[in-house]
Every structure is written in C-alpha cells, then in structure tokens.
C-alpha cells in the first residue's frame, strides 16, 4: 500500500484504442492494493490487476492532459488521459511500483482469499494427482518404474520428485546421465502410449561439446529404446534449429552424435528460441495495435513478425513426434537446450494429439500440471511474475495455447473445452492470483509453501466448467479421433483475434454462433428436465380416479400434440423460456466502432436514439 500515492483521480479519459478521432469515455480512476479500476460515467467498470500490467508509459503532455498507456500481459491496452500532470505522475509511479513485485510473498496469490476453508484448499490442491495420471497411462509396468533418485531434488533441482525411468536404468546410469545433461535434466518419461508401448521422453541437451561422450547417457538412451518392445529404434528430436544446436557445441553443449548412440535416429525440427519468440510477439502486437491498419500492412506485418511461422513449427514438431509413435511405434526423446520450453511445447502437444484424455477439461489441466508445471517450465521468469531479467520473458506457453486453439479450429468436435477455457488459463498464468503457476519449478514451489498459502486454480475452473464446455464435443463420435492428424498446411493457421484482441470488442463478430449453441445446448438440458416434470404432473393428474378427466386426457394426449386444441386460457403460444433472453440477444452495432473513413470523424453528433445503445452496441431482445 505504501506505493499508492494517490487512490483516486477524477475526470480521467479512457481513449478508444483504435479511434483516430480520440473518442473517449470520461470517468474516475481508482488505485487499490491489487487492482487499477476505472469507472466511466455510465458506471461501467474496467478492472486491471496490477500483476497483469506489462508496461506503463507516460506520453508527452497534450492540451487535454497527460496520456498514460498501460499494456497488459493479457493483451489489453488502455490509454488514459489524466487532466493534471501531477496526478498522472503519481499514478504512473504507483503503477510502476505495484506492477513490479520483488518477492513472491507480495504476489496477489498470497493475499487472495476465495473464502474456502482449509480442507477445501487442500482438496483443491489434490484435484490433479500426477501419480494417478501415470497410472492411467499404464506405468509403472514391466518396462518403466518410478525412480526415487530425485526424491530430494539432489540430481535435478528443476525436475519433480517423482520421475519415471526405464526399469533397466540403474541409479548410477541416472546419475551419470544427469551429469552429462544441461542442468542435470536427464531423460525421463513424459508420456507412455499403452497400445504402442512407446514412450515420449524428455531431457535437456547433452554436454557433448565437439567430441565428449558419456557411457551412462548412452546406456540411458539404450534403456529407453529397450523399454519399447515394439520398435528398438528410437527418435531423438532436437527441437532447435540445427545452427543453434551447433553453436552450443562451442560452449560444451550440443546434441547427440548418432555414431555414439546405438539405434537412434536423430532429427532437428527447428523451433526458434525464447528470444526470437519474444520479439516475434512484440512485432505482432505492434502491427495489430496500429491505428487505421491496412490489410496489406496487417498481412505483411503478420508475415514479418514470423509468429504464425513459429506456431506452425511447433505444431509440425508435434506432428513429427506423433507419427513416430503412432505409425512406427517408436519411442521419442525430445529435448531443446534446457528442456523446459520447446520440449514442453512439443511433448504436451504430442500427447494431446495422441490421447483424447488431454482433450477433456480435466485432462488438459493434468497435461499442464505434468508437462509444464512439474517439469519446470519457468513460469515465473517467462511471465515476469517478479521484477527480473526482461530477456527471460517469452510467450512459450501462449504459443502452446495457440497451437491448441488451431487444433480446435480443425477439429471442432474433438475437444471438451472451448476457446474461453484457453483464454481463462492464459489470464491466470499471468494473474498470479492462484498458486499453480508461481515459481519456476516444484522445489521452489514447495519452499514457498504454496499449497498452504495459496489456492489452486483448477477447482475454480471446474466449478464454472459450464462456461468452458464445447457444446459440439463428441468424445466418441469417431474412433479415429483418438489420434488427431492435423493438417499443417500454411493456410490453416490464422491470426488468433480472440486472444490478441480479446478486449477490442469492435473487432469481433457481433453475434456468436458458438455462444448461441452453447446456450441452446444448456437450454436443451433444462427443457429435458421440464418435460419430465410436466409428464410427471400430467401422470399425477391422470392418476385421479375421475373417469371424465381420464377420458379427456386420452383424447388430448394420444393423437399427438397436433390434435391438441388450444384451451381458452391460451390465446397465444406461451413465450418460451427466459433463457431466451440470453440466447436470442440480437445485436446491431455502432458505426462509431468502425472506422470507415477519416471523414467519418466529422460525424461527431450524438447517436440518434434509434435503439438504446449500450456499450456501443444496440441490444434487442425478442
């Protein structure tokens, strides 16, 4: 609280991000310990969590006041104009302080209280149980076992305690292999394919330099290939571009030499590193944030940002992995440099393509817990939870979500969850409101006592899962759907407007088929219930020993509803269902949302009172 120099500023203008005429809303700005809040004159509230703020910028003073631009990690960009420079300066400085947290304990998750009691909190953390998940995959089994080598994080600090390794990999092999791998991240099981008996394993790059070898590591890989009775060859996928991997050799790292390892097939798949990804996203946002953007500038910006190329590269890598397993029944070892960014992307997407469980709501949570959280994707660094090295920030997890979204576009019925689910997870990865994504690895999380001091996100998402359910989901409509075979031809990848412009409402379709169908299938459930109730009531009525009524009823019930005469009390069909309001909200829209011409800006008169304009959108209920 000591950072807050001013808690309330009045007469602040919120500018429309894309308007060329500086259209704005006037209202009051509040600063709280956790949020920035703007309430405009029509009482509409905009809440911005301090942790979501990626950058605050004070622009040069203008005649109308001092502009303040806030960029958020969830891609919201707000542009305020504060009338007095001093206020602006105060808000700016406060936000700078508030958005930069030095210690984990100052994060929102440690103060967030969702009114759960302790046992609920504990139960919430137990919701996702990875031991249970490995059991579901079918391990331990004859080939794979749980290793206690990392029980105390002695071998690898950034791995979880429980690791699954081939039965034939003895402790000395594990220890030796881990010493030959960057950050000690030796090959372990990520996913086991029961039917094919093939495994996805993950690790970091070997410390091979130009010629170093390590017998234990070679044994380790051999153990993995031997643990697969269906195919003794295994693939080693280096997810980096070959050039990067070669450059690493000079630093004593590198990649596996096929001559030293028996039965491996080595493959580069060329996903760029975190720095390339960071600047790619930055370029993408620059382009998409341009006022009065032309189609060609948008497309060439999209191209030069390289963003979609990177998404395609990630999915292509996952497709390669899946082919190795599904077609050749071969196990695959995946690594990049440290094995926590690209490796997480490829392993988790591969599993998602192979196993329909990960396409359920619960399964997706498990997947994120397993391949991202437990295996030490550095959420804290990558999402800049604490004030740290800006070079560590990278949208690696966002790319994973975007890849999943692309799959959802290609297979609309294969996923139990919807786009809103992905967006909500993205929101909370950055919000620091729940404990799940805090810290960089499990060891750190245990030290922070997150399970006692914070809450898990997943039970909250499950509670509101109705919002995240895909109404078209069909778990078993097609057996071939267990395995998804996406088509990664370039034109299948689209700009994810609902992610990068989720707060720019004027760009979205005004009516959403998806919402409509979602509401409708919700309504269908209600109707089914009502039918049962009504039938029960009618049955009850008919149960009355009254011959006349019985006769009446038979007449009306049997010759089907068509034969029903309208009783005197129903002059008109009863209007159906209040849900309808939600289902059938028809929207027109506001010209002012759309910039058809600079000329338009001359049209600054008040909106004619044709329809009640709310949020710049006309609502009509029928």
């Amino acid at each position, binding site marked *: 609280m000591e950072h807050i120099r001013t808690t309330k500023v009045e007469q602040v203008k919120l500018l429309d991000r894309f308007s060329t005429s500086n259209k704005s809303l006037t209202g009051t700005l509040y600063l709280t310990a956790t949020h920035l809040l703007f309430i405009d004159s029509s009482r509409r509230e905009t809440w911005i969590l301090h942790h979501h703020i990626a950058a605050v910028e004070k622009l040069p003073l203008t005649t109308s006041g001092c502009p303040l631009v806030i960029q958020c990690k969830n891609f919201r960009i707000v542009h305020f104009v504060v009338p007095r420079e001093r206020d602006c300066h105060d808000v700016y400085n406060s936000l700078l302080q508030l958005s930069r947290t030095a210690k984990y304990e100052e994060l929102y998750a440690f103060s967030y209280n969702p009114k759960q009691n302790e046992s609920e909190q504990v139960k919430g953390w137990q919701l996702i149980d990875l031991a249970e998940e490995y059991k579901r995959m079918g391990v331990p089994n004859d080939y794979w076992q749980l290793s206690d080598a990392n029980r105390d994080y002695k071998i690898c600090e950034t791995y979880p305690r429980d690791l699954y390794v081939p039965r034939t990999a003895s402790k000395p092999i594990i220890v030796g292999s881990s010493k030959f791998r960057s950050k000690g991240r030796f090959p372990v099981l990520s996913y086991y394919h029961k039917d094919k008996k093939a495994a996805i394993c993950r690790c970091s790059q070997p410390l091979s330099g130009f010629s170093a070898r390590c017998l234990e590591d070679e044994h380790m890989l051999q153990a993995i290939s031997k643990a697969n009775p269906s195919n003794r060859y295994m693939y080693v996928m280096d997810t980096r571009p070959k050039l990067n991997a070669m450059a690493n050799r000079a630093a004593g790292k590198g990649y596996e030499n096929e001559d030293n390892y028996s039965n491996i097939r080595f493959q580069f798949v060329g996903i760029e590193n975190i720095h390339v990804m960071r600047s790619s996203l930055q370029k993408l946002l620059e382009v*998409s944030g341009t006022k009065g953007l*032309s*189609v*060609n500038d*948008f*497309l060439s910006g999209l*191209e030069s940002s390289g963003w*979609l*190329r990177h998404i395609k590269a990630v999915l292509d890598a996952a497709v390669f992995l899946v082919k190795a397993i599904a077609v050749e029944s071969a196990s695959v070892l995946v690594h990049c440099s440290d094995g926590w960014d690209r490796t997480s992307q490829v392993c988790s997407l591969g599993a998602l393509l192979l196993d329909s469980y990960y396409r359920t709501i619960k399964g997706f949570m498990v997947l994120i817990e397993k391949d991202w959280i437990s295996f030490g994707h550095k959420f804290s660094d990558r999402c800049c939870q604490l004030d740290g090295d800006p070079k560590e920030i990278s949208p690696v997890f966002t790319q994973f979500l975007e890849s999943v979204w692309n799959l959802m*576009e*290609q297979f*609309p019925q*294969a996923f139990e969850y919807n786009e809103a689910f992905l967006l909500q997870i993205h929101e909370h990865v950055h919000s620091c409101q729940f404990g799940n994504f805090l810290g960089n690895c499990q060891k750190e999380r245990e030290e922070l006592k997150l399970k006692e001091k914070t809450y898990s996100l997943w039970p909250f998402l499950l509670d509101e899962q109705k919002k995240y359910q895909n109404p*078209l989901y069909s778990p078993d*409509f097609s057996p071939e759907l267990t395995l998804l075979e996406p088509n990664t031809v*370039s*034109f299948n990848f*689209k700009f994810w*407007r609902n992610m*990068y412009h989720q707060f720019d409402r004027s*760009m979205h*379709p005004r*009516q*959403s*088929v*998806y919402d*409509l*169908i979602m509401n*409708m*299938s919700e309504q*269908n459930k*209600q109707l089914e219930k009502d039918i049962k109730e*009504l*039938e029960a*009531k*009618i049955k009850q*009525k*008919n149960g009355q020993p009254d011959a*006349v*009524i019985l006769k009446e009823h038979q007449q009306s019930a049997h010759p089907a*509803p068509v034969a029903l005469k*309208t*009783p*005197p*009390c129903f002059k008109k*069909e*009863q209007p159906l269902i*209040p849900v309808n309001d939600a289902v*059938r909200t*028809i*929207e*027109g*829209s*506001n010209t002012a949302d*759309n*910039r*058809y011409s600079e000329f338009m800006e001359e*049209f600054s008169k008040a909106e*004619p009172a044709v329809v009640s304009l709310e949020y710049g959108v006309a609502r009509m209920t*029928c």
Partner: protein
Amino acid sequence: MDLSRFTAQHPPPAPPPCTRLRWRNSALHSSAIENHTEIQGKSLTVTRTSGEQFAELIKTPRADNAVLHGPRCPAVRGTLCLTGHHLIFSSRRKEGGEELWLLHANIDCVEKRFVGSLGTIVIKCKDLRIIQLDIPGMEECLNIASSIEALSTLDSITLMYPFFYRPMFEVVEDGWRSYLPEQEFELLSSVTDEWRLSCANKDFSVCPTYPPVVIIPKCIDDEALRKVAVFRYGGRFPVLSYYHKKNGMVMMRSSQPLTGTNGRRCKEDEKLINATLRPGKRGYIIDTRSLNVAQQARAKGGGFEQEVYYPQWRRIHKCIERFNILQESLIKLVEACNDQSHNMDRWLSKLEASNWLTHIKEILTAACLAAQCIDREGASVLVHGSDGTDSTLQVTSLAQIILDPRCRTIRGFEALVVREWLQAGHPFQLRCAQSAYSNTKQKWEAPVFLLFLDCVWQILRQFPCSFEFNEQFLIMLFEHAYASQFGTFLGNNENERSKLKLTQKTMSLWSWVNRSEELARFKNPLFEANSLVIWPSVAPQSLQLWEGVFLRWNRPSKFLDEAQEEVLNIINYNRELQAKVNALRRQLAELETDDRMQENLTDSTPVRAPWLRGSVDLNENPLLPS
C-alpha cells in the same frame, strides 16, 4: 474457436442415390441429379436436337478406360463422354453410378500433356475446382481436349445450355416474374409519393443499359430525363436505388456526369438530384474513383459534379479498383490458395500480394460510408464511379444489406440481385466470361460480383444470425453467375436479355431456387429477423479469406462438416423440445381447467375464472418468465 463458418455452411444436401463422387457440377440441378437415368435420356435428346451445331465439334464423343483425378478424391477409372453441353464421366462400377457431370460453360481453361501415348487433360473450372483426366491414346486425347476447348468457348449465347435445358421439376413460380420493378415500386409508393415510375426507357433508347422502367423523382418529367441522360455517361441518369424508411433518406446511383474539361453543366441533372434533398439539407455524392482518376476522366469527356453547380452536395472519393486489377487479384489469390507447399511466409506474402482482402475492405468501407450517411447523418446519397455498372453497384447493394433487414432474407436478397445487378445493367456476360484460370486476359473480365458476394459473406460471418440464407446460398450464386443451366445471368443488361427472349426460351434461376426443396439447403438455421442496421467491422483483423470458395477444393472439410451437422442437431433438438414442452404445458393446463370445471359443478363456492388458476400454475413453472 471460430464457428461462424458453420452457420454459413449448410446441412449437406441430402445425398443423391449415387453419392460417392460428390463433385457433381452443382449447376446441374438437383432433381435432375437424383434421377440420373432421366438425365441421360434427356441429354441424349439434347445431343440429338442440337446435334448439328455440336457434332462437328465433338470428334471423339467417348473415351473408355479414362482415369479421373478429382480434388481430394482417389483416382477413378471409367468412361468419359462428351455431349453438346456436358462432360460426363461415369465410373466403371455398375452399381453406385459414380458420375461427374461438368457443364462445358464451367470450364475456364484446358491444359494437355503427354507421357508416351497416355494423354492427360487438366481441366480448370470457373468454380475454381481442378480435375485431371488421363486418356489413353494420343489422338483421342487431342480430340477430346480440342472439343472441350471449343465447347467451353462457344461464341453464340443462343448455343449455350440454358437454351437447351428443360427443367425436370414442376415450375411453381416463374422466377422471371418474381421481382418486377412494378412490384418494387408498389412497396415504395406505400411509404412515399415523391417518386414515380418512368417508362421513358421502354425501348432502351434513353439508356441502353437500364431496364425499361425506372424510379425517379416525381417532379422530373421524361423530357428532362432525356436531357439528364445525355449529360451522364452511357445515358445512366440518377435513379432511385434505395429508400430508407426510417428517415426518408434515399440512395441514388448513376454514372459520371459528362462535364468534360470545360465544366459543362446540366440544370435538369441538378434539379433531379436536388429533388431528393429536404429543404436546407445537404447530400453526399460518393464517387468510387480517387479524386485523381475522376479529374483525369474529364479529359475523356467524363468528370464529376462541381461544387459550384451542386452547392448542396458534398463529394467524397472512395477509391474502389476496377477491371483487370480485380481479375489479376483473383488470379493471384487462387494461385496462392492452390499451392499447398507454400511455407508460412510465402503464403502470407502471396495472400498480401493478391490484394483481394484489400479490395474487400475498400468495398465494404465505401458501402458502410454510404449507409452511414443515410442512417446516421440523415442525408441522401448519390453513388457513382465512371460507368455506374460495377463499383457503384457493389456499394449500393452492400449498403442496402447493412441498412435494410429485408435484403438479408432469401427473397429480399434475390430481389436485391435482380434490382441492383441484373436490371441495373451489370455486364455479367462480359465480367464473368472467364474466372481465375483464364489465359486470355480481357480487359472486361472482372470478379466484381464475386467480390460483392465475398463482402456479403464477411458481413454474414460477423452477424451469423441476421441472415436468412447461409454461405451455400452465396456460393451457389457465385457458381451460377459463371456457368448455369438457367438464363438469369446471361446477357449484359435487360436490353440484351429481351432481345435473347430469355424469359420465353430459358428458365429463371429463381424458379428453381425458390422451391421449398432447394430453399431448405440455403436456409440459415440460426436466422432470427434483426430489424437493426448492422455495421460490420472492416478492420483487417476482422476480415477473413472466404474458405468456402477459395479453399473449397483444397482442404478436407470432413470434421468441419460434421461439426456443422452437430450444430444443426442441437438446433433441431431444441425446437423439438420446445414444441414438446409447449404441448405438455397445454395438456396440463387443459387437465387443470377440467379439474376446475369439475370442482365448480360439485362445489358452490364463488366461481373463480378457471383460467386464472391455470395460468398461476403455469407461472410457477421455472420455464416461464416471472
């Protein structure tokens, strides 16, 4: 995920009896497809009657053992037949009758190549599909290729299929009489009496590209009209395009005024367009050319309205590209879409280089501007470019879709196409002579109408519940504009159509479309009449490639189709349940009414209206609004 395309797509049409090959030319109409023996019977007769014209063009009418490679289908071996108007391929399989019927008119370009004595013909169609035929025997192959080439580029319109086609369905409604200007005027005169029908052009002498009757301000007599026609390019004087009931504002369209370099004026022209203004109000002239182009036009005798003579009008220039620039754009776009080997950068740069989406944005922006002037500014609008037959029509028709809910219904949209495209004299015959694969690049070929349909699709995507029709309807119109068994899109204007006697000699597309069997395929299940003005977003992030047309033959759509089906199932199930709940509720109410009556008979307590209790009970039902 983006589901909007599902609305637009449709319940896949009921599969014809022989469905394994789904690439039947949809220009063949479906009742004919469903009874293909009859079709064969008929096409045989056609070949016979028109035999003289076509026999010499068909040197090899039949090739056995040909192999057909269709888009996304395994190769099929079978027999190829050429008739006067169709290329027919039937697989060898006796049962199942896999057949492809392709209208020659749908063929945009034919390429042939040889490997040994095996010839291959690649046929590229105007609907953008590409098929490949392997034909054994060099001579047969050459003959067939040259026949196809000749048959697909017939010079005489009267030799085209619509003049031979006999419908296999019962004509309930003659589409040629469905949307007459007189009917449109009747609708108009019920809300305003400031306009009149003029028959000055009944012999097409005033303006050869206008229909015989047009709607003009009441205060302008035919004599003045003739003078205005002389002042406007091609005689296209300003006529009423749209009347906005909400505020009485109008949209007119015309061609450029012939001011020339010395600034000619025409008082009648000024009077005509001023007649649409309310006292003291200003109007807007939307010129679909850039200021530069408009100024250059003066050197060729054209020009634009000058402020001095039109002080009450404000001119806005909104540049929309024309002719070969658009055709080039289409060619580049289709080329980009057809090459699946492009990496991401190449695909995006090709998409950009095609400029297609830029044109979409330009057209939509101009249309929104016109609509905005009318609805938000309460001003009348005159739209023109140079000829008033292309970009002008794109703008006026799209503005109506934005403003007028009627244009978003099936019949309303058909009326719009008739009024603003066919009767307004968009030269379909010239513009749609060739599509994306044409080698002979002619100046007059341009996908003006396709761009219009694409713009409609963009709006449909943004307002998926506000249109009675779906994406399939738009795709169907695209196909028929380029190749059809119907006469609707033949000719360049009403003058030509009347000379061709299309109404007597050919069938109207609308006669077929407006039958309930066909309409079912084109209806949007999510449609809920929306009486509001719908303003689309024209931000590049909101515009999308129309996959239903441009990627239609390039990507498998199985999963998308199935999802679409599921959407339909949910909607239909919802309707079923609602009907059932209503029926049950009525039944319950009836029972309760009877209860009451019984009580009243036996009980002598003061009578309460039975329906009161009934409705109270109903209100307890959680389903009803409290």
